[in-house]
């Protein structure tokens, strides 16, 4: 271990990206709480800087070279091998960009917030920075640290600014937090076990790549157990059936911005972790558990998809729909081949953008009509056409319409899993029919139909409120029409890192002809 910081090219890019929202947060701390307009503007500027920097990173990332770039390593606790190691590759860069896209939009989705504005934006910025940190960390310890940071603001935001419908917001916040904490407790055990196993040659480290390079130190039995712990931790985070029940309740109770960030990016830490830690570091464990993941994944797709049909609350529909879509990510991870990893990351990105747009639109709708009950809404396309357009874009993306980035993701998942799990894949594709049914029903009942006089007073979204619609809608279509922009980046992450090489060793994972 070198004691000196190792500095790559443009190494300060990521720290600045991470610090921008935190600096904005500090500024807000010193602003008087009556200045709500200034607070919002400062928050928006902070996130804008962060978004611009991550876009810059996305464009300057050298796809030919691949691997971890913009790296920065500062030893932190040398005795334990902990170092403040940042860096991004083709897997984490899309997630970083996603975090900032959604973070930036979520500020604007909360533009009409009036209750305890100062505290709200402070917590929101901490939350965004925490999520961002997990994606740019190259060190398991740092990854875990940021992951824990995320939990606290979420809990407070849900119970203070949340809404009580089927379940109280206190219950929702508690459920969300306890699930996250239990998951992270299992992760902690797995992390320590992994660390101790990797330190067997007397050179302790937490760096992902280093951990992955020490394959020979992990016995198959160890890999199975450690992966099982991770599967529980990350699986409950990505709402794998049957550990999914926090997700619809949590989204329904949370304020708009938290729903956006939680469904959009935080949930994706589960999938990202399963790939980065599970598959990459413990391939044999992944191979052992893959069939289980695949079966549970189809449970997600069909079970949650069917339940979404029975929902009356808009947020519950999208909540269950997001559980259902995470099934595709899990199925792709379980297929353990490079194309499916591409599909999994693309699906996380696509679903994140779509879910964030959906929750933003539902948030505005709730703000204006004070209801989320589908039976009470109707004919909103008359009074709020732009809101209706945003809602429709999100809905169509959700059912995987070609031309949206979601289709690309679904297609690359199906095409790569059919070989490994033919029957499960067919069942998964059948899930798109359920998706079509609940999405189209919801769109029809909320947006279309006769004009309702009780909504005549509503004003359409305008000004800052348009930012989520324009930004996220643009990304949905850009990714769908020119898929190489996004997919090329992810492909770099899959093929030029060690991942593809590791996958080759386990690619024979199959459940036989049965599934």
């Amino acid at each position, binding site marked *: 271990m070198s004691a000196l910081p190792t500095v790559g090219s443009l190494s300060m890019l990521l720290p600045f990206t991470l610090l921008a929202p935190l600096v904005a947060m500090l500024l807000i701390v010193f602003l008087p709480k009556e200045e709500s307009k200034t607070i919002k503007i400062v928050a928006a500027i902070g996130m804008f800087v962060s978004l611009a920097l991550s876009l810059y990173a996305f464009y300057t990332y050298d796809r030919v070279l691949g691997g971890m770039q913009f790296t920065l390593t500062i030893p932190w606790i040398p005795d334990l091998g902990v170092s403040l190691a940042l860096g991004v590759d083709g897997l984490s860069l899309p997630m970083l960009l996603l975090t900032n896209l959604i973070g930036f939009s979520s500020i604007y989705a909360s533009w009409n917030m009036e209750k305890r504005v100062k505290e709200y934006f402070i917590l929101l910025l901490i939350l965004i920075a925490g999520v961002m940190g997990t994606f740019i960390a190259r060190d398991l310890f740092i990854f875990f640290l940021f992951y824990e940071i995320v939990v606290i603001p979420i809990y407070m935001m849900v119970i203070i600014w949340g809404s009580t419908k089927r379940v109280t917001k206190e219950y929702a916040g508690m459920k969300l937090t306890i699930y996250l904490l239990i998951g992270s407790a299992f992760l902690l055990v797995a992390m320590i076990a992994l660390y101790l196993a990797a330190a067997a040659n007397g050179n302790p480290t937490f760096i992902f790549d280093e951990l992955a390079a020490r394959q020979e130190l992990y016995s198959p039995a160890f890999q199975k157990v450690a992966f099982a712990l991770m599967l529980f931790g990350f699986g409950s985070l990505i709402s794998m059936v049957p550990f999914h029940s926090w997700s619809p309740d949590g989204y329904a109770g949370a304020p708009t911005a938290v729903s956006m960030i939680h469904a959009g990016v935080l949930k994706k830490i589960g999938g990202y972790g399963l790939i980065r830690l599970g598959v990459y570091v413990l391939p044999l464990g992944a191979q052992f558990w893959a069939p289980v993941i695949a079966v549970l994944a189809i449970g997600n797709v069909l079970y949650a998809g069917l339940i979404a049909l029975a929902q009356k609350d808009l947020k519950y529909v999208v909540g269950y729909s997001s559980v259902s879509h995470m099934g595709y990510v899990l199925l792709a991870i379980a297929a353990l081949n490079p194309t499916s990893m591409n599909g999994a990351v693309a699906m996380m990105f696509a679903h994140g953008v779509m879910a964030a747009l959906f929750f933003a639109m539902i948030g505005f709708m709730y703000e204006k009509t004070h209801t989320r009950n589908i039976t009470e809404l109707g004919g909103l396309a008359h009074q709020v056409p732009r809101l209706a357009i945003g809602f429709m874009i999100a809905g169509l993306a959700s059912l995987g319409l070609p031309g949206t980035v979601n289709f690309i993701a679904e297609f*690359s998942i199906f095409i790569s899993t059919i070989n490994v799990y033919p029957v499960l894949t067919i069942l998964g594709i*059948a899930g798109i029919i359920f998706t079509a049914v609940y999405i189209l029903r919801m769109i029809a009942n909320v947006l279309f139909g006769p004009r309702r006089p009780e909504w005549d007073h509503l004003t359409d979204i305008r000004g800052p409120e348009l930012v989520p619609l324009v930004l996220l809608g643009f990304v949905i279509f850009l990714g769908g029409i020119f*898929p190489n922009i996004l997919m090329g980046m992810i492909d770099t992450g899959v093929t030029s890192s060690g991942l593809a090489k590791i996958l080759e060793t386990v690619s024979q994972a199959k459940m036989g002809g049965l599934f």
Partner: protein
Amino acid sequence: MHDLFQWAWLIPALPFLSFLLIAFVTKRSKGLSSTISILAILTSLGLAIAIALSIIRAGEEIVEHPAIVNVNWLNIFGLNIDFGTIIDPLSGMMLFVVTLVASMVQIYSLGYMHGDKGWSRYYAYQSLFAGSMLGMVLATNLLQLYIFWELVGLCSYLLIGFWYFKVSAREAAKKAFMTTRVGDFGLLLGMIFLYNKFGTLDFAALAAALNTNFANVAVVGTVGYVTVMAFLIFMGPVGKSGQFPLHVWLPDAMEGPTPVSALIHAATMVVAGVYLVARMYFLFDASPAALQFIGGIGAFTAIFAASIAIAQNDIKRILAYSTLSQLGYMMFALGVGSFSGSMFHLMTHAFFKALMFLGAGSVILAVHHKQDIWDMGGLWKKMPITGWTFFIGVMAISGMPPFAGFFSKDEILANALQNGHPIIYAVGLFTAFLTAFYMCRLFFVVFMGPEKSENHTHESPWSMTIPLIILAFFSVVGGWAALPEHNFAFFVHFGEFEHEAINWTLAGISVIAGLLGIGLAYAIYVKKLISAESIVTRFPRVYKVLRNKYYVDELYLWIIHNVMDGFSKVLYWFDIFVVDGIINGIALITRGSAKTLRLTSTGQVQTYAMVFFFAVVVLFMAFAIGEGQLTALNPLATLGGVK
């Protein structure tokens, strides 16, 4: 390669551009929106005509070697997809038909949609549809085709629900999307299987791969695999082209504006399924079982829909069932191996069915948005242009020479018999009889007979009649493409081209069947020799079943509302009470044990002290007994060591 063919991408690009312009720039200005849209589609029409002429000039060269341009679109590990354009006689014909009908419909809409609040939105959707449909026609690979296939489905959804404030329109749009989605499930699956097997989705590469696989006997099970894939892919066309059992959405789709029905649900989008089967004919041709299935489904749909059409009273619904029936015709034509016949019928049908829909629109506007044919009557005198052009359409669909439908129907029926499918031939012939009957019924009731004075009708404006005249022209001359000097089949065919003269015996039989239908309708609805009521009272059950479309909709609704929604409710119950119940149960156990254990905290310091003291004593003794050797913990031993 002809230079012009490289610019084919402009044909879909222009309407797409027009869509973007209308959506983001000229939304507010109605006049500008429609002008841009019509200009774009007319330019595309010009290009399509130029390409069609070049194809005819190029002759055999282009038939053997289609002009293909590809650019890379998606390239990741294990998945490489191109976007491109293919110009061969098939796509050239489709380009011409689509751009022609689309531009006619857009011009017609100037009159029909006059004063509508959603004018700009309407033209935006129209442009988007035209662009997607043309993109689909030009697709060089299955994925590209699928993408545009879904986009035309989206446009269909948007345009059926164009008057979204009507509950019926909203429900119809939803139904159309959901039903086609069921078909698309199969198409997507088939596509994935194909890619998995052959590693490409490019039509040319697939055809080549399939050929080599069949040449190589060692590839066991290929026929079975191909059959499965053919069946799956055929599910898409079943949904899109309204074949039984996924036909239910098309009649309901008539809730959209009438020009939309003419363009999307009669002439262009619904034939996309037929086009797809034609494009992938190399696959279906490799599997006799699949072809047989297609023939069966097509023939069944043809007669099934025609029988329903007899008992309908809504002018647009009659036309819709007629469309279903004619789509069945095209489909079984492909099934019996009449590739050219099917494509030919696709073209002529596009002309005369668009004509009749637009004519129906003109009528509906004239009688102030009534659609029941019994509310109309005697319109011939008041609306001569609409009446004459509609008459041409009816004659064409009834297969009367020298109108377009005669040639295409005749070729299909002749091929069916020659290729050894006598049952399908009989079904087709009987359908031709039914078609002539119900179309003439429609025509006689609407245009003949006594005038209804309350209607105050007048002829439609020029913007609506000119498209009618142009389409009527093509409904007559379109069929002449089959005549020996400009042989349609020479350009559009599959496999080896064989010249076939018109079989005048079979043609005569078809004409007689058509004449019988016309005569029967004339006897019932004009001369009143036979009372329609008496037939209904004679066969009440049959009439009721036909009137209610064989109760297929009711069955589907029952399945959706009871089976699917019921299942969904059960699972929701399971999720809340069992899955969540376990989670909440764990929480309850934790809370319960905490409640019990806290009773030990009495708050009495003395109790705590006592527990503490005795615990220390117990611990001390445990150590002393258990680990007696540990002298450090045994003070007595220490004392004993002292001198």
